[in-house]
């Protein structure tokens, strides 16, 4: 590995009484990159993040964050990390502005200029008591505190939970800006568009185990593309090509899915049929992801294994 890593987790395990929350999880975040962290509900994302924050102690495996041990060096590491939970709980009788200052002071930097800028970007009134904030506004308090800090690593656990689309846009800009500043970001999310737009790499986990990780391009590589094309002649020829599946024909218009490796054969078979209006769609993140979310994921996995 030539690149330095902001987060390096290997074979992490964690049990809660009888529940096995993490079962050999791997996760890497390269320094200066934005890493997406996806998985179904209860798959262990928050647990992993809490271990990275030294709030929970791992049972096994190794975890390194910014070169330190998340549990042992927690206090020192936290000066360099900013964290936003999916459900920001504040002190009900303090204002949002006070909470932001206090959180900043606890990390060791309060930059009024930056705070004011992000307050404005997120359109947040800092003089309201936290108890009267809406869900999204509470979330904004956490986000402003995190982005206004100068932390090297931002750990965001479903941070846009409850934000309106406009604010989600602001959030996306802020993450891009953080990346431009050279900061690293670990972003756990259920929103594909967000991850697709922002993330350099993606890690998909399921039942506490990493099932897929890499750059989006790499992941797409492993997946079948969908092709739609209009042809003259009989589409049955195509079904004979190894690697073509889910073939459907609607008059002259056929669509099918195809393995990356079978493309040359498919092209050869198509050429004599006078193909027009060929559309090839790479798998969306959603499709990649649903493969691991769905009930049939296990079966699908088994099927793709040699």
């Amino acid at each position, binding site marked *: 590995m030539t690149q330095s890593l902001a987060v390096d987790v290997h074979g992490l395990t964690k049990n809660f009484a009888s529940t096995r929350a993490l079962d050999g999880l791997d996760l890497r975040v390269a320094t200066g990159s934005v890493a997406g962290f996806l998985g179904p509900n209860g798959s262990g994302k928050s647990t992993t993040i809490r271990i990275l*924050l030294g709030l929970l102690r791992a049972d096994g495996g190794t975890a390194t964050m910014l070169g330190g041990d998340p549990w042992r060096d*927690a*206090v020192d590491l936290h000066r360099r990390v900013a964290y936003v939970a999916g459900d920001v709980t*504040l002190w009900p009788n303090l204002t949002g502005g006070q909470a932001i200052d*206090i959180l900043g*002071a606890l*990390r060791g930097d309060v930059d009024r200029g930056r705070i004011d800028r992000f307050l404005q970007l997120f359109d947040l009134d800092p003089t309201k*008591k936290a108890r009267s904030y809406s869900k999204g506004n509470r979330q904004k308090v956490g986000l402003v505190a995190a982005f206004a800090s100068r932390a090297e690593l931002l750990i965001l656990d479903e941070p846009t939970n409850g934000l309106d689309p406009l604010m989600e846009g602001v959030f996306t800009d802020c993450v891009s800006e953080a990346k431009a500043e050279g900061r690293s970001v670990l972003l756990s999310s259920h929103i594909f568009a967000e991850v697709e737009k922002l993330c350099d790499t993606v890690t998909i986990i399921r039942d506490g185990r990493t099932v897929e990780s890499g750059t989006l391009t790499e992941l797409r590589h492993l997946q079948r593309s969908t092709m739609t094309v209009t042809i003259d002649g009989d589409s049955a020829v195509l079904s004979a090509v190894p690697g073509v599946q889910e073939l459907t024909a609607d008059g002259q218009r056929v669509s099918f899915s195809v393995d990356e490796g079978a493309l040359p054969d498919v092209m050869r078979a198509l050429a004599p049929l006078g193909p027009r209006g060929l559309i090839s769609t790479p798998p969306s993140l959603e499709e990649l992801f649903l493969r691991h979310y769905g009930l049939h994921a296990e079966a699908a996995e088994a099927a793709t294994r040699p």
Partner: protein
Amino acid sequence: MTTIQEQGARTLSRTPGRGRVIDAYAGFGLMVQFIVRRNWLRMLIWTIALAGMIAIVVESQRIAFPTQADRDAYAAIANTPSVAALTGLPYAASTLGGILNIKLWMTEAVALAFAVIFLVTRNGRAEEEAGRTELLRGGVLGQHAYSLANWVVAAGFSVLIGLSSALVAIGQGLPALGTLVMGASFTGVGLVFIGVAAVTGQLAQTSRGANALASVILAAAYLTRAAADLQADEDNPSILSWASPIGWGQQMRSYGESLWWPFGVSVAAAVLLCALALLLERRRDVGEGILPDRRGPRHASALTRTPVGLTLRLQRGSIIGWSLGVLVGALFFGTVATAMADLLSGDNPIAQGFIGGSKDVLDGLLGFFAMANVLLISAFALQSTDTIRAEESSGRAELQWSRAISRVRWALSRMAVPAVISFVLLAFSGYAIGASFGASIGDPGQGGRFAAASLAYWPSVLLVIAFVVFCAAWLPRVASALTWGIFGSMVVLSMFGDMFGLPDWVVDNTPFTAVPRLGEEFSAVPLIVIGGLAVVLVVLGLQRLRTRDMTAA
């Protein structure tokens, strides 16, 4: 939950009309079931504790006063200002029932009042604060159904306490009529404070505020009737007694004249208060209080940005409230003690029960008040330290622990506040008791003497703080209930242990009774032992807090 939803759907189909008064109560029966299901254990424990106390005290008094001659002798000296002020004017003191009233009636009544206040707030304002009421109200639930169900369950609980107390006493051979009146008098006090908590739950926006407001009203009711009972003419307290809901219960005079009609006053007051609460509920939004919420500062002050400063800021209201309460209590103790001292004599058995082994009756009595004062301050310390657990279960600890502060330093900042404030409170309130008493006997030197005696309890308060930290670290999920439960039994033991006929080695060795009382020979040994114990518990607690997983609710 599924059954509730299913049944909720059924309720919907049964109530097609819109805008009818009854609609405001749709889902009432369901909510009663729901609240009972969530609280039955809590209510059962209260019932066992309160009814059990009656069984124990009747038995111990039967042994203490076995013959009618003993009881007559006791009755002749029972009516002292100390009894009047603390537990109420005695009636029928020559009967076992009357003795039971003197020993236990006030404790039971006040305990039940607290129980219903906490119960109503827990299911009312606290639920609303947590946003769960909104969840329910989003379903097919009338505007008032949940509140009404809450109060009805609490009322049922009050009746249960009254009945079980009465049954236990009848089982112990006490006369049925007086016993039933006693049970009803408890129920009456409970009902009124349901009404009080119902109203405070509408006024305040937080459960803490609702509980505090209702507790202040309870304290006012207690002090009002104390003043009334002290100004008694024979066995008629001053008219002031009728200004206190606790006074209404007393006026039923169980085992004496056994009057029923004051019970009607209690019920009427409870109904009126609940009606007022419904009126308030109609006028406000879910989640809001009637008392307005103001905007706050845009920035945190330099002080609030430090961990200790934050703790101070968060507990500002509660610190001010407790301080005022402690101070008023101290002044009250000081003046009342002076009045009582004139009438006390060293051979009065009740006085002996209260004042321990000291030679000087007056000193002993004041020492007793000093301890009561200390227990109040300890309750503050407990509540303040308990926020360690509250921060963690609410998720706010996650917010702080993921910053650059170690859990140990964070916990220490939370302990420093109650430790220092309790020191200040002990000194000031001790001084206040002494000074107000000194003023009445023309001796200005009393203030310092009392302050010193009061400060001797500081290690005990620190032990309370240490115990809370220890429990929060080792048994996070049950810490709050456990610490309050043990502290509550400690209070009963320290104040009334002698009366329950418990062995001396138990009564004299609680963290509070082991400390030398005012007027007793001073010895530093208990203080050192208690302080040492506190240090051990803190070290063990912090060690555990540092190494365990964060444990949310």
